[in-house]
């Protein structure tokens, strides 16, 4: 009874194994996104707070319609420079399902700082159903989960356009898909999410597409590595300490070995 299952499984896996090295040959080569300067790169880089706050606004008003951010809590926003009252107010702006209560029923209540970011869809199937069958990925770690991280996401968000004239003959945009110069395979189910003036920044920054892309990438980079600033700060101290320690240990070694020759 089980034998056919086993055989099928083995065949499928053997095929996966044998085909895996063959598959990457795509219709169009992947493009390496141009490198950009980001405030959070380098040994002492930090997140540009103003940009991250604006980026949060872009996420909240645009991306959150489709993408979840399931590893982030409202309380985490404190790290971006929002104060406690602002975080409370932000969270309260959402409705969360809680419960069950004493009657065994789920109920709605305003969000609290200790809640996770609310999700746009109840489950992946609903998300797919609303997006032409494609799943809008969770954005919590997406910057860490792609080669060239922030450069790639920026290029993706700004890389929409018409199919170029020099595209290979066999390249055909599937119905419901969009051309993107940086998405692997160049067809993406996500419609161009950004357009000029889509959000109104409180600080008066002009909200054109490149600006919004930069801001939201800064925000998502923070979301992917909220520990980054603490990590680098500690790293500088640890490395300096270890260098001094190694120097001292070298002196000890020299002293101990003085008489050996």
């Amino acid at each position, binding site marked *: 009874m089980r034998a056919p*299952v*086993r055989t099928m*499984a*083995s065949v499928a*896996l*053997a095929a*996966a*194994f*044998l*085909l*895996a*090295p063959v*598959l*990457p*040959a*795509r219709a169009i080569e992947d493009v390496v996104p141009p490198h950009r300067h980001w405030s959070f790169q380098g*040994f002492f880089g930090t997140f540009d707070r103003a940009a991250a706050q604006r980026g949060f606004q872009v996420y909240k008003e645009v991306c959150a319609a489709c993408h979840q951010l*399931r*590893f982030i809590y409202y309380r*985490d926003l404190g790290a971006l420079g929002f104060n406690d009252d602002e975080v409370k107010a932000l969270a309260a702006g959402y409705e969360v399902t809680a419960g069950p209560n004493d009657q065994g029923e789920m109920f709605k209540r305003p969000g609290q700082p200790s809640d996770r970011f609310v999700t746009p869809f109840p489950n992946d199937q609903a998300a797919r159903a609303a997006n032409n069958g494609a799943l809008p*990925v969770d954005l*919590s*770690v997406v910057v*860490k*989960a*792609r*080669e060239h*991280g922030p450069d790639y996401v920026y290029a993706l968000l700004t890389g929409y356009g018409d199919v170029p004239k020099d595209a290979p003959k066999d390249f055909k945009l599937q119905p419901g898909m969009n051309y993107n110069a940086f998405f*692997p395979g160049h067809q993406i189910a996500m419609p161009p999410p950004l357009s000029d003036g889509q959000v109104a920044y409180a600080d008066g920054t002009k909200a054109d597409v490149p600006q919004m892309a930069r801001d939201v990438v800064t925000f998502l980079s923070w979301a*992917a590595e*909220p*520990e980054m600033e603490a*990590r*680098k700060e*500690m*790293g*500088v101290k*640890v*490395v300096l300490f*270890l*260098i001094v*320690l*190694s120097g001292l*240990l*070298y002196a*000890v*070694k020299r002293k*101990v*070995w003085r008489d*050996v020759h």
Partner: protein
Amino acid sequence: MTGAPAMLDNKLVKWVDQRLPIFTMMQHSAIDYPTPKNLSYWWNFGSLAGFMLVVMIVSGVFLAMHYTPHVDYAFASVERIMRDVNYGWLIRYIHMNGASMFFIAVYIHLFRGMYYGSYKAPRELLWWLGIVILLLMMATAFMGYVLPWGQMSFWGATVITNLFSAIPFVGNWIVTLLWGGFSVDNPTLNRFYSLHYLLPFVIVGVVGAHIWALHTTKSNNPLGIDIKGPQDTIPFHPYYTAKDMFGVGVFMVVYALFVFFAPNLLGDPANYIPANPLQTPAHIVPEWYFLPYYAILRATPDNFIGSWMGFTLVPAKLAGVILMFGSILLLFVLPWLDTSRVRSARFRPIYKWVFWLFVICCAALTWAGSQPPEGPALWVARLGTFYYFFHLIVLMPLIGWFERPLALPKSIAEPVLSGGKA
């Protein structure tokens, strides 16, 4: 060699020692242990590997307090460690990069042994135990990489466990046993977690035997000649304790640079995508320390060993698996493949260069393993694989046979006296 340990002056210490001589043993093996006085810094990597083993176990035990081995929660539990556990990111990055640092230390340690002929009599068992440690480490690291249940965790596990199905007759049975079912799934994750926790302690045991054998045969040294008397040695403490501590300091600087400033540099970004059994990643690539073997695995042409007249003697996949495991197992017979009577490459004018070709060959295989097996990378993998085996099976016996070694120094204490003439 020396009298009663000074610490036995303490009554309590003495009381314990008379019933269980652990202080005498410590004195004997960590303090008095006579060590060649001419060891170079290449000899630091043994203690560095030991240091990394301790770091891995300590950081691993703390990770295990917060990790959830279930396909639905594993990825999220690792993210929770990164975000919500106090200093969880630090513990995880120490563990994640620690695996790489462990392999760096062990690989340098191993090449050191090959250069100075440390595997030759009377140290064959010491060498064997070292290879056993390497194999156990590989199994441990492989299973550890599955735990965060990212795309590479899942697909790496799928590809590697599937290799066993190439073994004739029992292959499929072994694969089902590894999976605990009919594909990589929750039972696989659970058994890998259990074994990932267990194997490091098995490694501790084998390391104990490794050091026991070392203390029996004593350390080799850059000259590769035997210890002739007390004038050739110095006590392990304080000389080598001081030197090893300095080594640990420098090693930790490099380690810390990775942990704090480039924690994901050595990893594959795809492992931050949750595992999805329905979506094969474009490139399935293992961690860097497995790349040479991965290159060897995929180097065999379809018609490698006899595919005449529609009859396949050894299928390409099986050949790849044999070569891959063979590349390590062959190291067990290295002491007999090497026919030279001289240990240290310093006195072997030909082998000295051929050794570096072998190192370059391993580096090339590492590169080839990171590329899709096509075009130039495939040819580098094939040439590299060929040279790897050619070096071990043909060059090692041959060079030892026709090479004329330089004159060996009389002793460690007076290397110049005799090294100059003759």
